[in-house]
């Protein structure tokens, strides 16, 4: 498999949208709590938030709750996904990878629906105005442009 194919595979789920999945669930602070229409979605979201957060007690609670429902294999797989995508985000942002024109066009509608263009990196990559000030997170530095 070529590198190009590997890259495109990472976006594969986006190419197969399913109306039963609630995309805004992934941005809970804007849209309110939800499970995304995904089984045990609330537990998974709580776990992801706890891993990236700083509340150790919350992490223990989220981890125990997830393990109780999904079992140890489910918890391990969930932790792996959270860890991997946290790394991927950092690599993408730190290296300033441009959003390819075809993906910019293909994602226009759901970027608008999820208000993703408010992310500071969008103001750099796409030239959009930043409409919401967000604090630096996870040691990353963002720049705002108006």
């Amino acid at each position, binding site marked *: *498999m070529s*590198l190009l*194919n*590997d890259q495109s*595979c*990472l976006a*594969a*789920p986006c190419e*197969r949208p399913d109306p039963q*999945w609630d*995309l805004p669930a*992934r*941005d*809970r602070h804007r849209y309110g709590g939800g499970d*995304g229409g*995904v*089984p*045990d*979605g609330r537990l*998974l*979201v709580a*776990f*992801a938030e706890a*891993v*990236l957060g700083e509340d150790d007690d919350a992490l223990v609670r989220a981890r125990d709750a997830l393990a109780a429902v*999904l079992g140890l*294999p*489910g918890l*391990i*797989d*969930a932790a*792996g*996904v*959270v860890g*991997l*995508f*946290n*790394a*991927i*985000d*950092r*690599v*993408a*942002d730190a*290296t300033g*990878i441009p*959003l390819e024109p075809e993906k910019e066009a293909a994602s226009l509608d759901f970027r608008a629906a*999820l208000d*993703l*263009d408010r*992310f*500071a*990196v*969008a103001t750099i990559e*796409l030239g959009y105005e930043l409409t919401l000030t*967000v604090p630096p*997170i*996870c040691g*990353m530095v*963002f720049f705002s442009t108006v």
Partner: protein
Amino acid sequence: MKAMSLVPDEVRSFFDLVTHQYLPGAVMRDFSREHRAISHPQIELLAARVSALNRCLY
């Protein structure tokens, strides 16, 4: 990815992680069955929430 590809071993290591912590490339598009203890939608919800928390555009 272009930055990492300057060091080929890093690209290989990256996709080793993808295989073990996400899905092997060969089954990423196989929605006919699940390949991990959590389902495709559960995996993508986790990935999307992490990316949103990191304010990742990509």
